């Protein structure tokens, strides 16, 4: 296991919901990352975000770690969920609420 794998292991262990994104939640640097931030905020979930643009090793490492070639990436309770398209689809078909309940993640949908 490489150092970056160990680092990512720790990142997804430290928080229940972890978002690897381009930019920050306040200043996303890519439309897909912005969409994911929007969804997580809408769901009222607490999450930890990491800006891959600040860390080239993380930017490349997370793609290998998840076997997923794009960013953003979302982990919930150490489980890889996917990127923007999957999260959006889970929101639209209501699957995300069942999933969050199952994982014991607090959320409060903003009405």
């Amino acid at each position, binding site marked *: 296991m490489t150092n970056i794998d160990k680092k990512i292991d720790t990142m997804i262990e430290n928080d229940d919901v972890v978002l690897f994104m381009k930019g920050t939640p306040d200043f996303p640097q890519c*439309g*897909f990352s912005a969409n994911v931030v929007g969804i997580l905020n809408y769901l009222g979930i607490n999450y930890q975000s990491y800006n891959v643009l600040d860390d080239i090793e993380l930017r490349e490492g997370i*793609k290998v770690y998840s*076997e*997923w*070639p*794009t960013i953003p990436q979302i982990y919930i309770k150490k489980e*890889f*969920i*996917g*990127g*923007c*398209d*999957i999260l959006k*689809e*889970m929101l639209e078909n209501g699957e995300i609420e069942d999933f969050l309940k199952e994982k014991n993640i607090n959320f409060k949908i903003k009405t």
Partner: protein
Amino acid sequence: MTLSAQEITKLIKKKIPDAIIEVNDIRGDNNHYHAKIISQKFKGLSKLKQHKMVYEAIGSHMGTTLHALMLTTSES
């Protein structure tokens, strides 16, 4: 270097021959696409695995010659 919608379709078709594929250039810049893919091969697979299969088809183009690819996959 960018990929055309036809090239993306061809790459996916190679990996998933039965796929019905629609690729739209959402910004008209040869760099941001939305691919809708229907294939029997997706049957019984999670969305994660379905999308992974498509990414495998695109291979190293993803993130290099192809910047953004929105995916919508289904089995029918």
